[in-house]
C-alpha cells in the first residue's frame, strides 16, 4: 500500500543533542510537510517542500531545519533540542496545492 512512513516512532534525545527525524513516501506526491503537535494542541506547520522549493513558516524556530534529498524522503533536523521541543512530529504529503494531505503516524520526541 502506498503510504507515508515515519521513523522512528519514538525518539529520545538529550537536551542540546542534535536529532534527525525521517519521513518517506510511496505516493509520489509533490508536496511534503512537517508539523509539530503538542498535547491537546492543533498540529502546527513548521515548513513544507513543494518539489525542491522549501517554504519555512515565519514562526518556525531557527533550531529546526529540513532536507529533501529526493521526492520520496524528507528529514527534520533539530540542531539543539530544548525541553520545549518535546512533541509529536507529523510528516504529511499532498499531490499538489489544495489537495488533501496524507499523514504518517508521527514520531514522538522526548527530551531528557
Amino acid at each position: 500500500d502506498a503510504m507515508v512512513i515515519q521513523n522512528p516512532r519514538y525518539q529520545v534525545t538529550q537536551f542540546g543533542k542534535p536529532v534527525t527525524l525521517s519521513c518517506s513516501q510511496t505516493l509520489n506526491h509533490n508536496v511534503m510537510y512537517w508539523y509539530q503537535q503538542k498535547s491537546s494542541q492543533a498540529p502546527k506547520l513548521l515548513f513544507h517542500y513543494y518539489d525542491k522549493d522549501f517554504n519555512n513558516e515565519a514562526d518556525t524556530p531557527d533550531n529546526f531545519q529540513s532536507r529533501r534529498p529526493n521526492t520520496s524522503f524528507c528529514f527534520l533536523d533539530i540542531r539543539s533540542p530544548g525541553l520545549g521541543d518535546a512533541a509529536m512530529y507529523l510528516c504529511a504529503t499532498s499531490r499538489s496545492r489544495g489537495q488533501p494531505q496524507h499523514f504518517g503516524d508521527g514520531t514522538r520526541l522526548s527530551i531528557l
Partner: protein
Amino acid sequence: DQQVKQNSPSLSVQEGRISILNCDYTNSMFDYFLWYKKYPAEGPTFLISISSIKDKNEDGRFTVFLNKSAKHLSLHIVPSQPGDSAVYFCAATEAQGGSEKLVFGKGTKLTVNP
C-alpha cells in the same frame, strides 16, 4: 490567534445517534475545508472536505455543512458507531490562493458509547 476553532474538546454520544462536531474560522480567505480523524498512536486520516462554493458534501455516514456567512462548518455522523470514537480535526486552507498550508483546529474527541 487561532484562525480555526473547535470549541468543544470532547463529545459523547450513544451508538446509533447523530454526532455533530462544530468548527468556526475567522479567516475569510479560507475556501477549502477538511475534516481529519485521528486514532491514538496513528496519524490523522483525511475524512471529508468541502469547497466554499458548496454548502454541503456527503460521503456515506459523513456529511459536512458549510455556512460561509457565519464562518462555521460542522461534521455530522449518522448513525454513530463505536469505531467512530477518535479525535476529529477541522482544517482550512486558501486553495484558490495557491496555498499548500492547512490550518488546524485543536480537535474534538468523540466517544461513541455502545
